[in-house]
């Protein structure tokens, strides 16, 4: 990295100012989450009577504990599956020049294009016929398939830009293609993997309608469904929603923060593994 100079300091200040601007609505969110409903002062002015009541009430009333567990389970399992199958699939798709490879890749791209409204009802009925409704496995299966096109696209794009020399060298060393993938290709893909992990986590974590539909009638729910329990036709308790939301976004941001620190060294660090 470059040395820390005066120009770097100016840049640092500019970026912090930008972040404050971007983070302003997030501040409003937190500010509303820690005030009682009866505090009707402007959402921008810091509350004079901060309270954590909303958090405990949201936690109990929304049964957020169980919902959090389900969300973690569904998200973690789906994202691991998506990353595993997609990175593996991206490898031949990025490297092979045969017609089947190009065709398969285009088919995955088609998956990005199709609006989900088309598949929604038939898929729901298939899940019903398989008896998966009401179980988190229906969601895991759903997201594992749904997120594949996006993730394959991400991996193929970055893989194509990576030099082939390292894999080729590994093959000369007698590695099988799978070993080459695991020891040479995957480490080089670390920044993409972190990105794919975070973006997939956000997508799965926040999805609302699918879990509402797929888990309805069972005792299980995910965080967004639990939070939506606070939204009524005419009556909506926003302060509770904000408290619940703060609870629900913290894990995702934490994951991103931790992973970001781990790839400070990026490319060069990855090759050592």
């Amino acid at each position, binding site marked *: 990295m470059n040395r820390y100079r005066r120009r770097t300091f100016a*840049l640092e200040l500019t970026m*912090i100012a930008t972040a404050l601007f971007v983070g302003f609505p997030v501040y409003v969110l937190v500010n509303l989450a820690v005030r009682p409903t009866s505090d009707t002062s402007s959402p921008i002015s810091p509350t004079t009577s901060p309270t954590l009541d909303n958090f405990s009430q949201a936690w109990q009333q929304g049964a957020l504990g169980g919902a959090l567990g389900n969300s973690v389970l569904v998200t973690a399992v789906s994202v691991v599956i998506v990353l595993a199958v997609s990175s593996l699939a991206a490898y031949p798709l990025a490297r*092979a*020049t045969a017609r089947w490879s190009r065709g398969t890749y285009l088919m995955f791209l088609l998956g990005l*294009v199709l609006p989900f409204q*088309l598949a929604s009802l038939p898929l729901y009925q298939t899940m019903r016929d398989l008896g998966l409704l009401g179980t988190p496995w229906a969601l895991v299966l759903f997201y594992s398939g749904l997120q594949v096109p996006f993730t394959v696209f991400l991996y193929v794009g*970055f893989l194509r830009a990576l030099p082939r020399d390292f894999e080729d060298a590994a093959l000369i060393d007698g590695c099988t*293609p799978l070993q080459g993938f695991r020891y040479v290709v995957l480490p080089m893909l670390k920044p993409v993997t972190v990105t794919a992990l975070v973006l997939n986590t956000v997508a799965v974590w926040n999805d609302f309608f699918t879990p509402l539909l797929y888990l309805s009638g069972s005792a299980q729910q995910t965080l967004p469904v639990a939070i939506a329990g606070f939204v009524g036709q005419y009556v909506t308790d926003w302060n509770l929603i904000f408290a619940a939301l703060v609870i629900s976004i913290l894990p995702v941001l934490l994951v991103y*923060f931790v992973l970001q620190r781990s790839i400070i060294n990026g490319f060069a660090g990855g090759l050592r593994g």
Partner: protein
Amino acid sequence: MTLAPHQHLADHERPPVAEEIRGVRRARTTPPWWFALPALLLFAFVVLVPSARGVHYAFTDWDGLDPSFSFVGLDNFSAMLDDPDATAAIWHTLLIAVAITVIQNGLGLLLALGVNTAIKSRNLLRVFLFAPAVITPIVTAYLWRNLLGPDGAINSLLGTIGLDGLRQDWLGSPQLALWSVIGVIVWQYAGYSMVIFLAGLQSVPKEIHEAAAIDGAGPVRRFWSVTRPLLAPAFTINLMLSIIGGLKLFDQVYALTGGGPGHATDTISTLIYKDAFTLGEFGYSIALAVVLTIIVAVASTGQYLVLSRNERAAS
């Protein structure tokens, strides 16, 4: 694209093929095709097959509820031509997609370059700038509906800094509402683009940068001749994702304005939703979804061809 004689489906069973290139021995092998199989199966099960099965509703008058319905041929498609709401929605959709693609990625790139430097707060800043993308649309919509209200924070802020003339009815004016929606989406997803650009920047080997610096190249020059070509895949990915995402946009618009005032911010997806579930015109809504598919396919294919040509030229 040439097809080498040895590259066919049984490729993976062969030992790595060594080629003689300019006197240097290099192994050139294609990873086996079955690596793609698990992903393909999942994808086919969840997306491809159900989509193919769902298309036929576009040719029916099904209301989404009554078990009896009939096939009406292309009626739904011809009805679309006479539906001013549908044509307006197609326009809004295209405008949103183009605006987001340009603005969101421009800002995302600047943010990524800014936090990929030696600044001390870079890790915290990355999380901060990404945070909006993590919040569910219904809540961002709620926040912005209040911030953009007639007496909301944005107008108060403009008043405080003496720019009273710029105070606006951001979401209530049909002319402004669409741009307010675009602004909110850019706010939410600039950090998303940043994350992808960042992955690209982090994949740029540091040695290359250092070598360029030693050569005496300035930061702009270094960006243009070293970083930019290596960012090509991130560009492709970001531009594709934002054009596709922009064209399919639903959650944010629906939660922010519900398509209003009137139909001023309706997109194809909000219309699909309203037709299917508020008006009970399921067949028509699937026909709209088919049209959306075609628009997205044409736009993204065009973009992809241009981008992959540039990518090849850059590398």
